[in-house]
């Protein structure tokens, strides 16, 4: 047995000594014990989503008096000075962009972990 010089040597030898365990049907046995997969086809999910969206849009259209508030809003906007519309559009863009960045960071562990890096 060689003398252990340092922790790194010991760790490396421990890693090398750990045998790779062949699957030998292990995965198949696990999969056989899983509950049966859902049989709901993709097209059905898409149709349900489309149907609910169409229904919601129809109800919103009827409840808003045939979209009258949208027409009135556009007419009102057209009376505003152009610079105010530009500022408004820029502000909306900033808010949406900020939310997009926040959600992207929350969903991406690699980016989120950047804050923990030590240089």
């Amino acid at each position, binding site marked *: *047995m*060689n*003398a*252990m010089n340092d*922790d790194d040597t*010991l*760790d490396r*030898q*421990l*890693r*090398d*000594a*750990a*045998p*790779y*365990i*062949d*699957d030998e049907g*292990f*995965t*198949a*046995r*696990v*999969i056989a*014990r*899983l509950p049966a*997969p*859902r049989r709901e086809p*993709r097209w059905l999910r898409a149709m349900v989503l489309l149907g609910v969206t169409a229904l919601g849009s129809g109800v919103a259209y009827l409840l808003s008096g045939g979209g009258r508030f949208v027409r009135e809003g556009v007419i009102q906007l057209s009376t505003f000075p152009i610079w105010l519309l530009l500022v408004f559009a820029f502000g909306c863009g900033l808010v949406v962009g900020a939310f997009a960045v926040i959600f992207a960071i929350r*969903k991406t*562990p690699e980016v989120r972990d950047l804050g923990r890096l030590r240089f």
Partner: protein
Amino acid sequence: MELTDAQLIARTLVDDDHYAFAELVRNHQSTVRGLLRQLTGSDIGLADDLAQETFLRAYKNLRNFRGEARFSTWLYRIAYNCFREHARKRKELVGIDEEQLEREHDPQTVDPALRHDLMHALSLLPLHERTAVVLCCQNGLSHDEAARVLDIPLGTVKTNVLRGREKLKRTLAEWGPN
């Protein structure tokens, strides 16, 4: 193209794709089963039963995996919980099986004598030190990750790894040639 763990998890969740989950099992079965063999004192049958239970629990709770830790770390935690529950039920921890250790030898990468000495010395450590050493030194988890897997304070993990390493070195030195 080989898919990442995150992609395989997404496919499993969205499409209930058993092939994707099978790929996850294949990718991680060796380390999970290896960890459980260490914890059970090389009781291969028991370790594989617990490993199966680990992957079944992982499948059922996959929606709770938030990607804050590595998938392997999350699996180790489930495996360790399975082992603890089993140990609690039996109220005992099984000892080392020398014959099974002998059968696990793979002489291609490491000197067989060194492998045997290492694995045997490892099996002689107290369970809490052995677990910490296996997770941190053998499977490459950080102390922080191991603390999360074992649900114990970070300082305790560091102490267990330090003591485990020292005992391993001492044992191996005693067994070595004079």
